[in-house]
C-alpha cells in the first residue's frame, strides 16, 4: 500500500520522444522482432554470397548472350528479394499483434490522442531497419564482389550508380517495412495485413501480364515493388529513374500511413 500512497514525483506528459522510447521497448521485447530482423540480415548477406558463388562457378560455361545480360549487382541483390518479405511482414506485425493480443487497448489508454503511437512505431521501425539493412547491403556487396573478383567480373563500389544502388537497397527495405506497417494499421489483422502486403508486392506484378502488353509496360514501373527497386538498379530497363521510383515507393508508404492515421482517429479501438 505504501507504494501507492507515495505520490510518485513529476509524472510527465505524453510527448512524442517518450512514446518513441516506449515503442522501442515494445519492439525489442518480443521474439518475432529478433527472428524477423535476423532473417532479413541473414537472407541479404547469405543469399547474396550463395547466388554470387553459383553464378561465378557457372560463368565460364555461360553463353555470350547470357554474359551480355549479366550484371554482378543484380545477383548481389538476390537476398534483398527475400529480406523484403521478412521486413514487410514484421512491419505488418508491429501493429497487428497489438490488435490480436489486445495490447492496443493499453497503448491507446496510455496515449489517448492515438496518433503519436502510430508515428512512434514508424520512427522506431524505420530507424531499426535502416541501421541494420544498410550495413547488411554493404556487407552483401563486399562479400559478393569478392567472390566475383576471382573471375574478374566484379564491379567497383565507385562505378557509376553502384554506391546509390547499394545504399539504396537498405533504404528500399526500410520503406518496404513502413509500407507494411501502414497496411497493417489499416487492416488491423495479421492474416489480412500480410495477405494485403504480399498481394500488392508479389502477386500484383505477375497479374499485370493479363493486361495488353502496352498497358502492362506502361503501368508496371509504377507498382510499389518495381518503383522502389529502381534505386537498386544500374542497368537500363522498363523502369522509372532511380530516385523517382524510390520517391514513388515513399509516397505509397506515406499514403498507407496517412490513411491509417485517419482511420485510427475515427475508428473505435
Amino acid at each position, binding site marked *: *500500500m505504501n507504494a501507492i500512497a507515495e505520490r510518485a514525483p513529476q509524472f510527465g506528459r*505524453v510527448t512524442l520522444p*517518450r512514446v518513441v522510447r*516506449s515503442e522501442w521497448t515494445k519492439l525489442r521485447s518480443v521474439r518475432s522482432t529478433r527472428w524477423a530482423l535476423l532473417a532479413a540480415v541473414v537472407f541479404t548477406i547469405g543469399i547474396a554470397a550463395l547466388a554470387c558463388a553459383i553464378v561465378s562457378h557457372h560463368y565460364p560455361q555461360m553463353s555470350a548472350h547470357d554474359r551480355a545480360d549479366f550484371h554482378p549487382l543484380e545477383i548481389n541483390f538476390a537476398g534483398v528479394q527475400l529480406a523484403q518479405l521478412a521486413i514487410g511482414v514484421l512491419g505488418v506485425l508491429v501493429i497487428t499483434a497489438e490488435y490480436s*493480443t489486445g495490447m492496443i487497448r493499453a*497503448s491507446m489508454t*496510455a496515449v489517448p490522442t492515438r496518433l503519436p503511437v502510430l508515428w512512434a512505431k514508424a520512427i522506431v521501425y524505420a530507424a531499426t531497419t535502416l541501421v541494420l539493412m544498410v550495413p547488411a547491403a554493404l556487407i552483401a556487396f563486399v562479400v559478393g564482389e569478392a567472390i566475383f573478383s576471382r573471375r574478374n567480373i566484379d564491379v567497383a563500389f565507385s562505378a557509376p550508380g553502384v554506391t546509390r544502388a547499394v545504399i539504396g537497397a537498405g533504404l528500399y527495405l526500410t520503406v518496404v517495412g513502413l509500407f507494411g506497417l501502414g497496411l497493417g494499421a489499416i487492416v488491423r489483422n495479421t492474416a489480412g495485413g500480410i495477405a494485403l502486403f504480399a498481394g500488392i508486392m508479389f502477386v500484383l506484378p505477375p497479374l499485370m501480364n493479363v493486361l495488353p502488353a502496352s498497358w502492362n509496360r506502361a503501368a508496371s514501373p509504377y507498382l510499389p515493388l518495381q518503383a522502389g527497386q529502381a534505386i537498386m538498379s544500374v542497368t537500363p530497363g522498363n523502369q522509372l529513374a532511380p530516385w523517382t521510383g524510390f520517391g514513388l515507393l515513399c509516397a505509397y508508404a506515406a499514403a498507407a500511413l496517412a490513411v491509417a492515421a485517419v482511420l485510427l482517429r475515427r475508428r473505435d479501438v
Partner: protein
Amino acid sequence: MIEARGLTKVYGEKKAVDDLSFSVRPGIVTGFLGPNGSGKSTTMRLILGLDRPTAGSVTVNGTSYRRHAAPLHEVGALLEARSVHTGRSAFNHLLALAQTQGIPRRRVDELIDLVGLHDVARKRAGQFSLGMGQRLGIAAALLGDPQTVMLDEPVNGLDPEGIHWIRNLLRGLAGEGRTVFVSSHLMSEMSLTADHLIVIGRGRLIADVGVREFVGRASKRLVRVRTPQATRLAEQLTGHDVTVVPQGDGSLEVAGLTAEQVGEAAAAAGIVLHELTPHEASLEEAFMELTRDELEFASEAAV
C-alpha cells in the same frame, strides 16, 4: 470524479449504452453493477475514449479523458478483456506503458512488488494464469498513481486470497480520497466492497443509490411461519399489501408484515406457532428483482 451525461453508444442496430447519466464521486468505492451484456464494459471503454459515444459525453476529473496531458495519472484502468501482448514480459509491458509519460523505471519495480509478481516479472505474459494476468492488469492501472481507478470485473479468476487482496486495495484507494469505480455482475461481491451502486440493465440506468438503500428499496421482506392451524392464521393476516402464500411443506410465506406483527396476530387469535422466521432478501435477490425485466436473455427464453 467521473461524470456521464446522456451517454449513448449504438453498435449497428444495438443500443449498448442508452442515455446514461451518473457521477462517480471520490473517496468511496462505487460499484457498477449489471448482468452480463448490460453495457458495463462499453461504458468503461467510452470513459477511456477507446470508443466514441454516439451521443452524450463523459468527463474524468473535469475534462474528456483524451484531453489529459498525463492520462495514466488521471485514470488507471483494468479492462475486462486482456490488454497485454502475450509475447512480452510483465516488466517490459509495464515499462513500455510507463515510458509513454516519463514514469520512472523504479515505479515499475515498485508495482511489480506490490501486486506480487516479482518472481515472474521476466516471464512472458502469455504464460500467466488468469489470476496473474489480473494482477498485471492492476499493476498497469496503478502505474501512473491515478486519481481515478476503474476496474472491470477485477476479481475474475482470482483465488480467495486474491479477492481479499483486491477488496483491501480498493478500500485503501478510496480511503486515500481517490475515485474508485468497480464493475461486477456479482451483487454479493459488490455488497462487500462498494459503498455506492450504479446499476444498469440493457444499457439503461436502473439505480444510483447507496448499497444499504438499494437493498431496502428493492427487497420485499418476507416472514416464514409454521403452524398447525395454517388456514386460521392466514385468515387473520389480512390488510393492505399483505400476501400469504402457502408453501409445499405446510408453512406460510407472508409478505407485507413484520415478524412481530405476525406473532402478535397469532397470539391475539390464540394460534400456536412452531416457527417464525424473518427473511431479509439478499442483495443477490434484490439485484435479480431489479434487473429481471432488463435481462438481455431471460432464463425462460433460453429454455
